[in-house]
Structure formats: structure tokens, C-alpha cells
């Protein structure tokens, strides 16, 4: 048995190599493969990665309890006492993440084959189909490096890599906005995500530097061994810097602002990167760093509070959004807040459990939303071509993602509707669906130890059920509010089939960690020190009751009298300025603009214009150096060269000439006078010799 698992552990580099091979194939000969070939290569690469991950899980389960495997691949950086290698680590935590990433990733690859086929045609650039799958495979490879790393530095490589893929895919349609109009909106969204993530990465790097400074290593094993004897302030700073990284990557307050804008990317990207996998990297990081966080109660409290406040804050914004993907984006931030709060409280099992179920149902929701959007696009297309006489309708901008344009889609897209419902009940926390179990485990843990966090999360859970109810009623029920919604069409099987798998997982995902059985907790316990949660019937009852109440409330508001075309949101009248705040995201972007971006731009302008252009370029280079040089040369040329050197040489020449003029008179041509001169000379010389 041991030999077989040894053999399987040898396969582990292939979780990175396989997607890289896939992307290389598509990069080199993808244009010859055709769309189906490209999609098949990418999905196969991702699927094989999942198989390898499954083998790792199997091999791990044959090891004795608490053991894990390490696979060194190649040396990377060896300087003095610093030794960083490419080493894969297979323990229950990393293998769980591998399974989630490659499993959900594969389903999304398959879905994207159908989705991107239509997306590239609606946006008139078929050539980008291949590029999309290259990026998607690159993302899988990078995410695998992230989750299988054995040191913080290797983890950071994956961390940056997924950030790059996120940037590339948010800006996938970089020359247009989300409605396909020429604009910088999408590329600006990509830049925003990248820059905000850089702030988080700074925190991560500072934490890694501190580890190296204090412990002399960034290997998990050595760091965790050393933290026990470290001073409290070191622990606090490392955990806080890591929290900055987590806030950036996992979209927590105050760095969450990039995630809603990231919806500019194609929907499979939103599902894969910005809901299911990449944004949970922060949760994974805290879980991985559990031995550090467990040492500092202050750090745990701060993390838990950040998560809880984010959960409520983002949920309240989700209530006021009209874009189907924006609602899900804020929902994702809110659910990430749940996870961060859970891992902050030390409930690592509950946090990871929610991470997994959330990956299932939020991927499902995003992909179903993509199906809805494409259905609306098809309806729009159909309508525009069906009525040639209304050619001016084509020019009119239509937002297929605006829920105010939808309504009654239940009849037009029944498959998508049922899939969406499965995701909704899972997210809303209705028993016995997956979200209920994971969310309830978090709430029960919070109830035991952090009452404040518990209340915040309960409010967030209530709001979650409310905005999901609002979304369901607005999108699928009532009457179509736009002609396009009347003509919406169902998506093909290649898109709905992976959704069915995800729907099944959303429905049954709770089985992973049922109270009393706790399969996942026991599995993860081998790696992380987890206190098993207890099922609390009171908490479960309250949260279920609140969820049902919220759905009922949303039904009363949005379906008792279905929204008519152009009618404002009924909450607008009831909540007044509060709703305006929700609708405008509590003006956080505007506040950041005023507080950070504008001063930063001002500083940049000052540095560029005043310091660089005016002072450095205009004054120092042009005025001082260039003009000084010109002045010096002029001085050397005019007074020195022309005035002195030339005058002196002219004087010499004149003197020579003048003497020559006077001397030539001596040569008079009379031989006798020469002879006389010679004789006189002889007389003088002889006279001198005689008289001397």
C-alpha cells in the first residue's frame, strides 16, 4: 500500500504541468484545433488535474492519521541561510483545496466551452475564444501552485499568478464596457483589481519578510515550529500583515472594492476566479497559518470582526443592486466575510466547509446568471433580427444583466430557473441544502465564543436570504418587463450539464460535514488543529426562521405586486436614504476617490509636472545644465578662443610677416654687397677672436 501511495505522490507536479501543457497546446496549435478542439484540450487538462488531485486524496487517506507528504521538485533560491525550494505539500488541507479548484474548475471549463462560443460572437471577436482558455488553464496552474505550496514564498508565486490571471480575465474584453460599447471601463476594472491586490500583496510580502527576519525561513514547518517562542508583537505584526493580504485577495473591508468591478470579466471567470476559488485563497491562507493565528487572541478578534463587518456591509449593498452579477458579487464578498470570520474565530473546519459549499453554490449561481444573461442576449439578438423595420433598436443600448429588464424568465428558461433555485436555497441557508449546514456551523461557533460576531453574521444571513429572494422574484417570476425578456431562450446542454452537477453538489454538499459525522472536520483535523463544532438547534432554528422570513418579506415586496416596467424598487420609498446608500454602495468608491485616489493623483501630478517636468527637466536640465554648458562653450569660443588664442597667433604671424618684410630688403640681388657682408662678418669674427 505504501508503495502505491508513494507512486501517487510522485504524480503531484502534474497538477501544475497538466494545465500548463494544455495552455501550451492551445497557445501553439490552438488556431488549427478549432473552437471545439481548444475547449476540449483545456477542459481535459483541467479534468486530468482533478484526477491527479483525486489520486493524491486517495494516497493521503492510506497514510497513517496526521501524516502528510512532501515532494521536493527543484531548488529555487539558496542564499546564505535562506533556502526556498519548489516543494509540493500534500496534506489534507491542500488536497481539499486541490479538489475544489480542479473540480469546480473543470465544470466551469466545460460550461465555458458553450458560454464563450456565444460570447465571442455577440462581441464580434471569435479569435478571443482560444485566448480565454489559455488564460483559464494558466489560472488553474497558478491556483495549484498556491494551494500546494510548502512555503510562504512559493505560495506567494501562486498568489501573484492568480492575481495576474484575474487581471487578464477581468480585462478580457478590454476595449469595451460590460455592454460592449467602446470604453476603458473593463480595462479600468482590471487595473483597479490589480492595484488593490498589490496593496494586499504588500501585506503578504511584509509578513513573509518578517518571518524570514525573525525565524530565518518561510517554510510552513519551520515557521510554525518557531512561532511558539516568538515575541507577541512579532506574532501580531505577522498576522496583521497577512490579514492585509487576505483583505486584498479575499475582498474584505477595506480592500473589497475591486471585486464588484471584476464582474466586467466573462461570467465563467466571475464564477471560477471571483467566487469559487481565487478569492477564497485568503481564507485558505489564514487556515494554513492557523498555528500563528492561534497564538494571538487580538489577531483572531480583529480577523473575525473584519469578516463579520464585511459580511453585513456587503450584504446590505447587495440588497440595493440591479445588476444580476453585481448582486452575486456583493453576495460573494459577504460570504467571504462569513468564512474569514469563521477562520478568525478559530473555527477552521467551519470556514473551510463554507468555502467548499460556497464554491459549489456560488459557482452555480454565477454560471446560471451567465446562462440568464446569454438567454437575454439571444432574446435581444432574435428581437433585433426579427423586426428589421425597427433597425434603430439595434443602436439602443440594452443591458442583458439588468434585473429590471427581466421578469417571468421561469417560463422561457425552465432549466436555468431550477438550477438557479438550487443555488439560491443553498445560499439562503434553507435546510437541508449545503449552505445551511456550513453557515450554521459558523453561526454556532460564533454563538459560543463571539456574541457580537454572531449577531452581525445573523443579520448578514437575513440580508442574504432577502436579496436572493429579491433576485429570484425579479428575474424569474412576475411578468416580463422588457420585450427582450419575452424572447429569452434557454441555454444549450453543454452549459446546463455542468450546472446540474454543481446543483447536485449544492443540494448534497452538506453531507460533507453533517453534525455528528463531521467527515470534513476529521479529515482537516489531521493538518489543522480544529475544535469540532457542536450543532446548536437554537441557532439553526433562528437562522432558518430568519431566512424564511426574509424570503417571505421579499415575496411580499417584490411578487405580491410584481414590479412593472420602469417602476422604482419598492424599498426605495420605504427606506429612503438608506436604500439610496445601498444602491450607491454606501459611496465607498466615491470616498476612496476623494480620500486616496485624488490625493494620489495630485501627488503623481505634482511629482510629474512640478518635480520632474518643471524642476528636473525644465529647470535643472534645461536651465542649469544645458544653458550652463552653452554659456561655457560660448565663453570658451568667443573670449578665450577668438579673443585670446586667435589674437596671440595673429600677433605672432604679424610679427613674422613684419620682420620678413624688413629682412627681405637685405637681399638686394647685388653680389658685391653680399660679399661685403661676408667680409665684414669675417672681420668681426676674427676681430673678436683676436681681441678676446
Amino acid at each position, binding site marked *: 500500500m505504501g508503495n502505491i501511495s508513494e507512486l501517487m505522490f510522485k504524480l503531484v507536479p502534474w497538477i501544475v504541468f497538466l494545465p500548463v501543457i494544455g495552455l501550451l497546446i492551445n497557445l501553439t496549435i490552438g488556431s488549427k484545433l478549432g473552437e471545439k478542439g481548444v475547449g476540449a484540450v483545456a477542459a481535459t487538462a483541467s479534468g486530468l488535474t482533478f484526477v491527479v488531485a483525486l489520486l493524491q486524496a486517495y494516497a493521503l487517506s492510506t497514510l497513517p492519521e496526521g501524516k502528510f507528504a512532501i515532494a521536493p521538485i527543484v531548488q529555487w533560491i539558496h542564499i546564505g541561510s535562506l533556502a526556498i525550494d519548489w516543494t509540493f505539500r500534500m496534506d489534507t488541507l491542500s488536497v481539499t483545496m486541490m479538489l475544489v479548484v480542479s473540480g469546480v474548475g473543470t465544470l466551469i471549463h466545460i460550461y465555458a466551452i458553450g458560454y464563450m462560443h456565444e460570447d465571442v460572437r455577440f462581441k464580434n471577436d471569435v479569435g478571443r475564444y482560444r485566448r480565454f482558455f489559455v488564460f483559464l488553464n494558466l489560472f488553474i496552474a497558478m491556483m495549484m501552485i498556491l494551494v500546494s505550496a510548502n512555503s510562504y514564498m512559493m505560495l506567494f508565486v501562486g498568489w501573484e499568478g492568480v492575481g495576474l490571471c484575474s487581471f487578464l480575465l477581468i480585462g478580457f474584453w478590454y476595449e469595451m464596457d460590460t455592454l460592449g460599447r467602446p470604453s476603458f471601463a473593463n480595462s479600468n476594472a482590471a487595473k483597479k483589481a490589480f492595484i488593490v491586490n498589490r496593496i494586499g500583496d504588500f501585506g503578504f510580502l511584509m509578513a513573509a519578510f518578517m518571518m524570514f527576519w525573525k525565524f530565518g525561513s518561510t517554510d510552513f514547518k519551520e515557521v510554525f515550529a518557531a512561532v511558539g517562542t516568538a515575541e507577541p508583537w512579532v506574532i501580531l505584526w505577522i498576522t496583521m500583515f497577512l490579514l492585509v493580504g487576505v483583505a486584498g485577495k479575499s475582498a474584505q473591508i477595506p480592500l473589497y472594492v475591486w471585486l464588484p468591478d471584476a464582474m466586467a470579466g466573462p461570467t465563467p471567470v466571475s464564477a471560477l476566479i471571483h467566487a469559487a476559488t481565487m478569492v477564497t485563497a485568503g481564507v485558505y491562507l489564514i487556515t494554513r497559518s492557523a498555528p500563528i493565528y492561534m497564538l494571538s487572541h487580538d489577531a483572531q478578534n480583529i480577523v473575525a470582526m473584519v469578516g463579520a463587518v464585511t459580511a453585513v456591509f456587503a450584504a446590505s449593498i447587495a440588497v440595493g443592486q440591479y445588476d444580476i452579477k453585481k448582486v452575486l458579487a456583493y453576495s460573494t464578498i459577504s460570504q467571504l466575510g462569513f468564512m474569514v470570520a469563521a477562520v478568525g474565530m478559530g473555527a477552521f473546519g467551519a470556514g473551510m466547509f463554507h468555502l467548499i459549499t460556497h464554491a459549489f453554490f456560488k459557482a452555480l449561481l454565477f454560471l446560471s446568471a451567465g446562462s440568464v444573461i446569454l438567454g437575454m442576449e439571444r432574446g435581444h439578438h432574435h428581437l433585433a433580427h426579427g423586426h428589421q423595420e425597427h433597425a434603430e433598436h439595434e443602436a439602443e443600448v440594452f443591458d442583458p444583466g439588468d434585473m429590471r429588464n427581466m421578469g417571468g424568465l421561469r417560463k422561457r428558461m425552465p432549466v436555468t430557473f431550477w438550477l438557479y433555485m438550487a443555488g439560491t436555497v443553498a445560499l439562503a441557508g434553507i435546510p437541508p441544502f449545503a449552505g445551511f449546514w456550513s453557515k450554521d456551523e459558523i453561526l454556532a461557533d460564533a454563538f459560543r465564543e463571539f456574541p457580537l460576531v454572531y449577531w452581525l453574521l445573523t443579520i448578514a444571513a437575513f440580508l442574504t436570504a432577502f436579496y436572493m429572494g429579491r433576485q429570484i422574484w425579479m428575474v424569474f417570476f412576475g411578468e416580463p418587463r422588457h420585450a427582450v425578456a419575452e424572447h429569452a431562450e434557454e441555454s444549450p446542454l453543454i452549459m446546463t450539464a455542468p450546472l446540474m452537477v454543481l446543483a447536485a453538489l449544492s443540494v448534497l454538499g452538506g453531507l460533507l460535514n453533517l453534525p455528528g459525522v463531521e467527515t470534513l472536520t476529521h479529515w482537516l483535523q489531521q493538518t489543522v488543529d480544529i475544535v469540532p463544532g457542536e450543532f446548536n438547534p437554537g441557532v439553526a432554528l433562528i437562522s432558518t426562521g430568519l431566512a424564511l422570513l426574509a424570503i417571505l418579506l421579499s415575496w411580499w415586496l417584490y411578487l405580491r405586486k410584481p414590479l412593472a416596467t420602469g417602476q422604482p424598487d419598492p424599498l426605495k420609498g420605504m427606506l429612503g436614504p438608506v436604500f439610496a446608500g445601498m444602491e450607491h454602495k454606501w459611496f465607498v468608491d466615491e470616498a476612496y476617490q476623494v480620500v486616496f485616489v485624488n490625493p494620489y493623483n495630485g501627488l503623481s501630478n505634482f511629482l510629474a509636472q512640478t518635480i520632474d517636468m518643471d524642476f528636473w527637466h525644465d529647470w535643472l536640465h534645461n536651465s542649469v545644465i544645458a544653458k550652463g554648458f552653452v554659456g561655457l562653450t560660448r565663453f570658451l569660443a568667443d573670449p578665450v578662443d577668438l579673443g585670446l588664442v586667435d589674437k596671440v597667433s595673429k600677433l605672432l604671424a604679424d610679427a613674422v610677416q613684419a620682420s620678413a618684410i624688413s629682412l627681405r630688403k637685405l637681399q638686394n640681388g*647685388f653680389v658685391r654687397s653680399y660679399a661685403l657682408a661676408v667680409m665684414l662678418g669675417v672681420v668681426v669674427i676674427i676681430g673678436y677672436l683676436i681681441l678676446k
Partner: protein
Amino acid sequence: MVPVNYYLALAGILFTMGAMGVLIRRNALVVFMSIELMLNAANLTFVTFARMYAANSASVFNGQIFVFFVMTVAAAEVAVGLALIVTIFRSKQSIDIDQINSLKG
């Protein structure tokens, strides 16, 4: 035996006459002859001193040999000089050396 001083005085007179001839006369042929006078004055001085120091000199005939050399060179000089004078006469129809001043500065 005639004293040495007589020879030297004669040589001095001859040299002075030659030098005066060169400086004063304008006829190129006369100037030439005056130069010959100066040369022979010098030759006379050579042989005079040669005889005078013959007793304590390593080579008795040094002065005499030098005179032969001078006579040879003078002959060559006369040959060239006369050729020049003939050529000048052909172009200028005159041997007045004051007429030949086209090399003045």
C-alpha cells in the same frame, strides 16, 4: 733664406687685393680673377706655414698637399663659374654683376 714674414706679408697683400677686387670691380671675369688671387694667397700661406713647422710636424707635406687640393677645387670652380658667366652673357649680353640682380627679395 727669405724670412717667413715676407711670405705672409705677400700673402696678406695678395688676399687684400683679391678681396678689394671682388668688392669693387663689376666685371664678373675680374671678380673671378680676384677670387683666384685670394685662393692663391691662402695657398701661399699654407706652404709658408708648412715649411715653417716642418721640423716639429708629424707629416712634413700637410700644407703642400692641401694646396694641391685647393688648386684642384679652384680649377673645378673656375670651370663651373666660367660656364655660368658664358650662359649669363648669352641671355643678358653683359657680364656686369650689378646687372644680375633679379634674385633680390
